[in-house]
């Protein structure tokens, strides 16, 4: 699906003390149009930049960012759930990709 995952550093404290307790993770999902899919918003922004005096900007792509918190037994479980959530709901795989960042909530 071309979906990439970026995971934050697991807090050593949280990992050691609360292994068997559910933990809360904060999640950020960046939804982007897949490479090759036309992005009318991105190209409109790109076209308007020279007129505003910004030169040398290219490859503008517009996406959206979804943030939420999730309770899970551990990082792997959180990742699995979020992955599912992205595939089934947060993205339309026909045109979109997601980049997922998960880290223990502070």
């Amino acid at each position, binding site marked *: 699906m071309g979906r990439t995952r970026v995971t934050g550093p697991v807090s050593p404290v949280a990992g050691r003390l609360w292994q068997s307790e559910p933990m809360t993770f904060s999640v950020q999902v960046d939804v982007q149009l897949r490479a090759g*899919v*036309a992005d*009318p*918003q991105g190209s*409109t922004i790109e076209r308007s930049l020279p007129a505003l005096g910004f030169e040398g900007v290219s490859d503008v792509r517009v996406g959206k960012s979804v943030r939420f918190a999730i309770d899970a037994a551990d990082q792997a479980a959180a990742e699995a759930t979020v992955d599912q959530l992205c595939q089934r*709901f*947060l993205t*339309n795989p*026909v*045109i979109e990709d997601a980049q997922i960042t998960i880290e223990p909530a502070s």
Partner: protein
Amino acid sequence: MAPTVGVVQFPGTNCEFDVVEAVASLGAESVILWHQEADLGGADAVVVPGGFAHGDYLRPGAIARFSPVMESVAAFAAQGRPVVGICNGFQVLTEAGLLPGALQKNAGLKFRCGMTELRVESVDSPLTSRLAVGDVVRIPINHFEGNYTCSDEDLARLRDEDRIVFTYVDNPNGSMGDIAGICNAARNVVGLMPHPERACHDLLGSTDGRLLLGSFLDVA
């Protein structure tokens, strides 16, 4: 006996009663199908009408596809019964996987409401049996996200299998292949961005919509 058309209603749907009025003018009954209900109320055909189901939040159709009614609509479609998605309904059907591709923001990044001319590309669909290939019908559009997009393979398949039902004479939204409407492989599910129910009355600028919805009722 007059057929009964089931018209799906999500929160945010707004064209459901327009569809009811249009099919009534063609002599059919209708029943509103609330999104939380799985029962299709004995409908002989189903319309997923236009509007902004769930506000179009996240993506048009993204939330609506998970409604109980959509499971029933999918099962109904799997039996080969006629289903048409109009505008937002087309978006819901693509999100639900009943039709291939997706509808993106219009190339002009503007909402567009106005009359369009559509060329009939296939008469082997529940909306076009009363028409001939090459006929041009006048049907209004009303959307921000009607720019049809699919993979090159899907586009090739749609063409090879004669599943492009309508194309725009003058593409208003950047749709791939000027596509305005398509059908599924079994040919019983159609999605189109233009609104045939808006072209069914002498006072409303076009009555060509009666040919489309009349065809639909023929197979209901």
